């Protein structure tokens, strides 16, 4: 029927990272960072634990790793002894599956909901526990079932004989509640009979099992409650109560996103304290510590996908190289000579924009200054000429930058430009190794200078290549998959045959990055205060951007700031918290944490998945030290005008004439 259709399957089309089993994730990524899963979670330790982590921290993988089904898979067979040498049974539940938001409102009292919810949760967990015990003899089952029936205030009329019957009974009780809740809007009455006191089943069943089954005598029954942020405060209080008053050999591991724990109180309003009633395992900055391993893991992920799609089929080493080569990137040889030559090619006969700007600035602000060595207009040209090195626009930019630095120090610009010129020559002749001062400047600022050059020549600042994409993904494989998915789609649309020998073009990568950043920005939308948080991040990014693209940026590769933790106002604190929770900012832990989790100073990086929106660097080196007042202006409710004023104040020192520079006696009529 048709004209040739060439639809292809995108190897990165499914952006959920389901490619590795929980086992493999540990092997390739989390464990190699130094600590095994068992050491992290300590499943046989009775002390309850909170496992806190944002998206992509591996929290769910870690908890699921210890769930009974995965335990059994690890042993390789479901017919192995009840409990292996590990000594625990993991009862895993995703809190969301209870649809707990049902248990509130609808014209009923909160106390009633509380009681119903507790009973419901008990039934839910009991069903999971019981349905994960493998074959027991009928007599043992009968004993368990009988004793379990006694846990109820009113024993059931039809006493179950087997575990299956028992589970069926519990399921029936649960269904009764579900049906009652679903009919509630019609009947206006919550018709629920609570048949067992709170926690009777949760602690009672393990006790019974421990007594009735020999192999379970010394087993820890580990309740793994994942994503507890789906419970409201009252519901979390019940869990806290269970933790505080846990019995026998039961324990809890509670998984939550960064700020998902709503309360540490129990139903009786006692407070559980970290260190006494529970420990905390924080996973969120895990990948920051394990960077190398994450890179390795990411490459494996990509290669695995590409192999599955038939694009790659070699050894890991070969395929790693193929992956690198699959993306068009400008060559960094000879200080990006080819690439920068193309950028400036349109200025063939004219002065390059950065020198024109410098010239205008010198004419406007420096002429007439004895100190700077610029007595008349004629003194400007020699300075510029010394900075020129036409085959290497990037070095020219660096030279201009060094001159600005000298200018800011009020040094003699004639001498300075001579010195820069000499150093530049040595640098080129030594292949970019000497002298050390120039080399150091290049190391630190070449990235920023390249970005500036790109913008000044009216091109888009680019983020290219697999290394960049891995770094952008900031520890979340999903982000990487999305960038690659978009890159592949654009490459196909541009008829490029990606991963089949030809590298994906710069244009396709550009489009992919723009799309991926937009997606991330949209995703990172907090449920509350979204506008406030997005505006704060926008302000921060604009400040960073103006610094990066100023004449004399104070920090190189700026995407991070530090600030004190005192004197930050409440709105700003909330904005910071939400921005971090939604991965727009990444908090870098530094120094000693004190017991109540207050940092001496805090350090935040703008997410590399957002940085391209403002043409900011995705790697981080320098950090901007902000005062509390400045933080409040950025993250608080300050009016735009006040923020702008603060920003201009900072930027002024970085742009000619570097605040305090003497204006030329004749006010130039030149407009910059």
């Amino acid at each position, binding site marked *: 029927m048709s004209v040739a259709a060439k639809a292809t399957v995108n190897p990165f089309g499914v952006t959920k990272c389901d490619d590795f089993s929980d086992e493999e994730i540990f092997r390739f990524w989390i464990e190699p960072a130094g600590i095994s899963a068992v050491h992290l979670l300590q499943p046989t330790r009775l002390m309850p634990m909170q496992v806190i982590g944002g998206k992509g921290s591996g929290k769910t993988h870690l908890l699921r790793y210890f769930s009974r089904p995965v335990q059994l898979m690890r042993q390789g067979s479901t017919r192995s002894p009840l409990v292996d040498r590990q000594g625990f049974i993991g009862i895993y539940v995703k809190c969301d599956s209870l649809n707990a938001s*049902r248990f509130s409102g*609808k014209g009923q009292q909160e106390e009633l909901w509380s009681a119903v919810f507790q009973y419901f949760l008990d039934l839910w967990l009991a069903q999971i526990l019981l349905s994960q015990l493998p074959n027991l003899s009928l007599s043992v089952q009968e004993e368990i079932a009988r004793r379990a029936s006694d846990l109820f205030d009113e024993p059931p009329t039809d006493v179950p004989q087997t575990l299956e019957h028992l589970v069926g009974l519990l399921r029936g009780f649960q269904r009764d509640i579900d049906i009652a809740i679903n009919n509630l*809007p*019609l009947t206006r009455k919550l018709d629920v009979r609570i048949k067992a006191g709170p926690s009777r089943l949760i602690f009672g069943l393990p006790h019974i099992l421990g007594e009735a089954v020999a192999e379970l005598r010394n087993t820890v029954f580990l309740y793994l409650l994942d994503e507890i942020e789906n419970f409201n405060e009252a519901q979390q209080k019940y869990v806290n109560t269970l933790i505080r008053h846990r019995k026998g050999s039961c324990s809890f591991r509670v998984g939550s996103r960064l700020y998902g724990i709503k309360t540490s109180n129990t139903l009786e309003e006692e407070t559980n304290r970290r260190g006494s009633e529970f420990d905390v395992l924080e996973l969120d900055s895990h990948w920051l510590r394990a960077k190398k391993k994450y890179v390795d893991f990411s490459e494996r992920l990509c290669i695995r996908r590409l192999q599955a799609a038939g694009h790659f089929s070699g050894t890991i080493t070969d395929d790693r190289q193929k992956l690198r080569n699959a993306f068009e990137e400008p060559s960094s040889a000879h200080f990006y000579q080819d690439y920068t030559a193309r950028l400036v090619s349109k200025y063939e006969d004219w002065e390059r924009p950065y020198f024109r700007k410098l010239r205008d600035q010198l004419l406007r602000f420096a002429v007439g200054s004895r100190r700077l060595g610029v007595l008349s207009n004629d003194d400007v040209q020699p300075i510029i000429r010394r900075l020129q090195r036409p085959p290497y626009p990037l070095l020219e930019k660096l030279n201009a930058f060094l001159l600005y630095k000298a200018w800011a120090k009020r040094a003699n610009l004639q001498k300075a430009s001579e010195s820069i010129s000499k150093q530049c020559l040595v640098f080129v002749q030594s292949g970019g190794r000497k002298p050390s001062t120039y080399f150091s400047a290049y190391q630190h600022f070449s990235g920023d200078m390249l970005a500036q050059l790109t913008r000044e020549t009216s091109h888009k600042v680019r983020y290219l290549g697999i290394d960049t994409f891995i770094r952008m993904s900031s520890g979340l494989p999903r982000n990487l998959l999305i960038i690659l998915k978009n890159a592949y789609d654009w490459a196909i649309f541009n008829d490029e045959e990606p991963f089949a020998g030809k590298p994906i073009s710069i244009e396709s990568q550009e489009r992919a990055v723009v799309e991926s950043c937009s997606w991330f920005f949209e995703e990172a939308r907090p449920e509350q205060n*979204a506008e406030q948080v997005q505006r704060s991040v926008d302000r921060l990014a604009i400040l960073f951007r103006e610094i990066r693209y100023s004449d004399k940026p104070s920090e190189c590769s700026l995407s991070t700031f530090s600030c004190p933790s005192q004197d930050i106002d409440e709105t700003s604190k909330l904005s910071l918290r939400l921005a971090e929770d939604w991965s727009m900012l990444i908090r870098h832990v530094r120094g000693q944490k004190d017991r109540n989790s207050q940092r001496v100073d805090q350090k935040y990086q703008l997410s590399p998945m957002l940085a391209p929106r403002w043409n900011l660097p995705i790697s981080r080196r320098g950090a901007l030290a902000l005062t509390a007042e400045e933080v409040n202006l950025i993250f608080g409710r300050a009016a735009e005008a006040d923020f702008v004023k603060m920003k201009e104040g900072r930027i002024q020192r970085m742009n000619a004439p570097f605040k305090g520079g003497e204006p030329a006696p004749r006010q130039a009529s030149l407009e910059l």
Partner: protein
Amino acid sequence: MIDYSICYKRQLAPTDPYFATRQFDTLIAAFTSDKRSRALFDKINATRKQWVVFPEYGFQQSECPAGAFIGPDGADEAHLITSLLDTVVSQSDRICVDITGFLAPYLLFLIRSIAARGITTVEMLYAEPGRYLKSEETTFSGEEVRSVRQVYGFEGTHGADTTKDLLVVGAGYDHQLMKMVATTKEGARPIQIFGLPALQPDMYQQNILRAARAAEALGGRGVGEHADNHLVPAHDPFATATFLSKLIEDTPFTNLYLCPLATKPQVAGFGIFYVTECLAKPVSILYPFCGSFPKQTSDGIGRFWAYTIELDLK
């Protein structure tokens, strides 16, 4: 599987004899600024005609038609609809509902509530849009999504085994809403329904363009050809219900979550299906509840439809 396509439906001409011959006891219609939500109110013969104004539209008292039912302050979908029906409807009424301006949760609960009152037949009318104000860039919901939750009366009896969970999304234009719902049930296998035939021939690809922005959240299956992307008519509640009926017959699942985010007839189809086949099952209807909705989303009027909903099919 139940074949809902035996139910009567009829496309109405502007001067259709239907309007003269059919008589109802009660007509309920939802008020919006779209002309099409008001087009049928005067044409229908009904002893009692009742406008209802949903708070999410943000109408001022003065903007509402005289005698409109406004509902108690802060009422949820169950409360508002129950109060409405209590005031307006008695057991034996022949009820007609113009669903054009209804918001999904209210429409769904209306179906549940009517069924619970033992009423087995209700006539639903629908006026299609001529076109949306900004094609695929039209906004259909306010900024703040307050919560994703089950619609009252559509909360199923779910189980702890989530290995084969399904999420069936009626893909609409509002990709933010689709994303929110998909994120809530990340572990579920997503199945998307796209309206084809669409209400207007160019709306199918507008739908594709818009839903593509939610593709990531829906497991990256995108909006193209895929076994889990289905084409179901946008204007036909019975085809929708039949599709869902076949789906649960063919697809084993542990828990099923439904989310109709496209046209009102689609929402009605989900509601009919649920009330007929899903009560006391591990099936729920989820919805991203918004604080506000725009008063107007479309221009012009397409076709008029009358659907005779039967709530006692087996």
